């Protein structure tokens, strides 16, 4: 199994990872800040990054479709199921987390203007109680996403170090050149 994904697939995968880390770090900094111009900037950047993750998703699905690898090779039936389930839920969360953030922003009365240029429509009207619900869902879903990403990374490392089957190298091509 010395196949690997093509560069566009690898590129958007790792770009998504970087964006998620950036959005999470921005959110963590934001939480402890009192209102200031800097906080308003970080808030906007957080939203821009999150919406970018959402916008990248169709591209990722397209690349996955155009650039398919055999996900079953060398796996037991249970492993195939577990892998498909984790990937499926991660994809769903890559939609859900930014969507809940967008919904929270709309309900809180703050429209989202992507990169400060593209105004996105408000998904719901201003509603404080609803805003709180979406905030909880945004936080809850991102925690689940991180847990699954950790599981996903652990599985990749297991394949690389224990199984030595080249699964990780499909997404990290420079590993296979050693």
């Amino acid at each position, binding site marked *: 199994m010395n196949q690997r994904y093509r560069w566009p697939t690898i590129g958007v995968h790792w770009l998504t990872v970087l964006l998620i880390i950036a959005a999470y770090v921005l959110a963590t900094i934001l939480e402890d800040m009192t209102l200031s*111009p800097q906080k308003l900037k970080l808030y906007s950047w957080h939203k821009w990054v999150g919406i970018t993750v959402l916008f990248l998703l169709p591209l990722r699905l397209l690349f996955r479709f155009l650039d398919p690898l055999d996900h079953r090779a060398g796996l037991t039936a249970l492993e195939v199921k577990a892998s498909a389930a984790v990937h499926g839920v991660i994809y769903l969360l890559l939609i859900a987390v930014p969507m809940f953030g967008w919904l929270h922003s709309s309900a809180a009365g*703050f429209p989202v203007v992507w990169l400060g240029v593209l105004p996105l429509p408000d998904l719901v009207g201003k509603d404080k109680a609803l805003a709180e619900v979406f905030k909880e869902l945004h936080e809850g879903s991102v925690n689940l996403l991180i847990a699954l990403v950790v599981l996903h990374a652990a599985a990749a490392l297991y394949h690389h170090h224990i199984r030595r089957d080249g699964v990780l190298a499909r997404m990290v091509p420079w590993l296979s050149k050693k």
Partner: protein
Amino acid sequence: MRFLLTLAFFAAIASSTLSSTTASAQDWKVDYRNSQIAFIIKQMNVPVEGGFARYSVKAAFDAAKPEQGTFQVELDIASIDTGSEEGDGEAKRPAWFDTARYPKARFVSKSIKRNNAGSFTVNGDLTLKGRTRPLSVPVVMTPQRGGGWLVSGRAVMKRSQFDIGGGEWADPTVVADDLEARFKILLNP
């Protein structure tokens, strides 16, 4: 002949309408439940809406000649709603409205110009944070059932002219300098 009769009929209506509306300027009652004073300000290019919960309006004019009337608006700045609690707290601090020293803002009309049917320009002085600047407000007056008026309009001003949001907040790329006020005031006879 028929034409002349029709003409005479309309002339009669017109004169009766005129005579009934030549009463002198009256004070109008404000229906606060159906009135609103709001504002829009861009933060990081995001239009964010806010408003004032408490204000008082004094309107005195003759329905036939609003351009001879007077308008006066007083805002209770502490009743500001910026869209978020931390925003409301920040807005009252000295860098913004400094409500401890300047609890009220006031607009007083000085002259009113009739543009066309129902459309006027109200020129007056806006006093905000102790600074008085001239402000020109385009206003639309829509007659209501029962003889009332809906007075609505919007006016753009620059917050820097009133020292609203100085210091670290001065950067207009974060909070825009342009501030748009929107209002609709329902007046009953």
